[in-house]
């Protein structure tokens, strides 16, 4: 059975300075509240993994918590670039950032290999792509049966994974509906896991194939309604697209970024997320 804890305690117990951590979510169910708690606790020297680092990784990088990022697409989808990440890569502010860059196919396969307990992932990819030349973790292997040369990347095995889900029951069985991303793989690949949820219910009341993670695969459950905002929780509240558009300007200036972070993250609490999604609930 999973442990049930307040988010601050779960982050304190599960995330250490120097950890390899994945806050996963593929546009949907991005664990913003968990990342903000990590920022409030001032974790350092993190290696952050995610297929699609967007606003929360821009924030972690801008707050100087990250030494290395493993990723496949670092943008504000539909809006533009990640300006804090760019500032770190191009100007070393607030500190230099090492990148290990992959394609989506490579990252998805690497998470799956991690969940499957394999040392590496094998797939048909990277042909002619220059990432294979700048990332020494992109290698190749010949199929022992056909001789076809396939791409190989190491499995992703985070120290800790944070995800957000719609529901857990009182034992900690986790339900996710809608766009699934790589959250199941991230939790199964990780040594420790924390799942924030919209609600805790007596019965998941889901069809036979729908429970994503049985309780014994999950470390800790934290009740954080609205905890994905400005990402969304299918059936609960919609994506706050206006917020993503507004972020571009906030992140474009170091001072504006820092003062926004103070007001909305450092001086805020996990309970604030519920209020942020109020008017987004009616559209879900």
């Amino acid at each position, binding site marked *: 059975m999973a442990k049930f804890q307040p988010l601050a305690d779960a982050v304190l117990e599960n995330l250490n300075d120097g950890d390899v951590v994945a806050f996963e979510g593929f546009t949907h169910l991005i664990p913003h509240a968990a990342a903000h708690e990590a920022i409030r606790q001032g974790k350092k020297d993190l290696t952050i993994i995610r297929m699609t680092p967007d606003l929360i990784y821009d924030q972690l990088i801008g707050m100087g918590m990250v030494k290395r990022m493993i990723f496949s697409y670092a*943008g504000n*989808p539909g809006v533009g670039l990640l300006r804090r990440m760019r500032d770190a890569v191009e100007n070393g502010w607030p500190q230099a950032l090492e990148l290990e860059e992959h394609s989506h*196919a490579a990252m998805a*396969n690497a998470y799956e290999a991690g969940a499957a307990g394999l040392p590496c992932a094998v797939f048909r*990819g990277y042909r002619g*792509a220059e990432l294979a030349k700048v990332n020494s973790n992109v290698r190749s292997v010949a199929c022992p049966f056909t001789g076809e040369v396939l791409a190989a990347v190491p499995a992703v095995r985070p120290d800790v994974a944070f995800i957000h889900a719609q529901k857990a029951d009182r034992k900690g069985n986790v339900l996710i509906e809608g766009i699934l991303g790589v959250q199941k793989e991230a939790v199964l690949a990780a040594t420790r896991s924390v799942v924030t949820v919209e609600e805790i219910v007596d019965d998941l009341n889901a069809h036979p194939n729908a429970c994503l993670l049985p309780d014994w695969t999950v470390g800790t459950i934290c009740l954080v309604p609205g905890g994905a905002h400005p990402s969304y929780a299918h059936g609960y509240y919609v994506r706050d697209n206006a917020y993503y*558009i507004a972020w571009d300007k906030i992140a474009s200036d170091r001072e504006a970024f820092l003062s*926004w972070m103070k*007001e909305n993250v450092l001086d805020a609490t996990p309970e604030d997320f519920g209020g942020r999604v109020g008017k987004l609930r009616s559209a879900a």
Partner: protein
Amino acid sequence: MSDMVHTPDEMMTIAASRALKNDDVCFVGIGAPSAACNVARLTHAPDITLIYESGTIGTAPDVLPLSIGDGELCDTAVTTVAVPEMFRYWLQGGRITIGFLGAAQLDRFGNINTTVIGDYANPKTRLPGGGGAPEIAGSSREIFITMKQSLRGMVEKIDFFTSFGHGEGGDHRQRLGIETQGPTLLITDLAIWRPDPETKEFTVVSIHPGVTREDVQATCGWTVKFADRIEETPPPTDLELKTLRDLKARTKAAHQGQPDPGKAA
């Protein structure tokens, strides 16, 4: 032919939409490809299967998604699969007929850069990166590319080979063991281009109404090759233009709430 005056952007989207067939299975890139694919679905290709990399298969959004994972895509999809399955079974499995991509930088052989401007280790501009594109470019049976022409975008030499098109041209794909066709069509705001059958260099085969050869060359960083016979792209019909404008209007209304990133909602 429409009496309504259309913009070059609208001509680009509509020309791109016409290239898609009703029985295509299309892996949709965000931005211009997404608009073209949905105009096709709402006009001549109602049964087209649109797939977004977030795992949504057979999606039919009423408004264009801002990201590749908006809830609208999942709500209207036939099914939604996890991302590893998306890339393994559906893309790598060879089930995609058309991969539709945009580009920050493009060369004459359809190679795409969305990674960096400048040197990889010390970039002048760090772009988002490849995302799904490197394997979309390799595993889709054909690649369509759409982008607005500019000297910054269409260059003699791209800074980084994010997604492999025809490489150095000719049989470069086959030499690397890539069995798919690669880029077969480029639709810009000024013209339609197809690769030369031998060299694989993109060649202008159709010019949009009101556009001259000089316009096409002035906004392209390499010396443009024109086909022996060049057609004029048929202008948008009333139906095409109305469909696109209605879609954009619905999208704008859906995405422009009051920005409210502060803690008090």
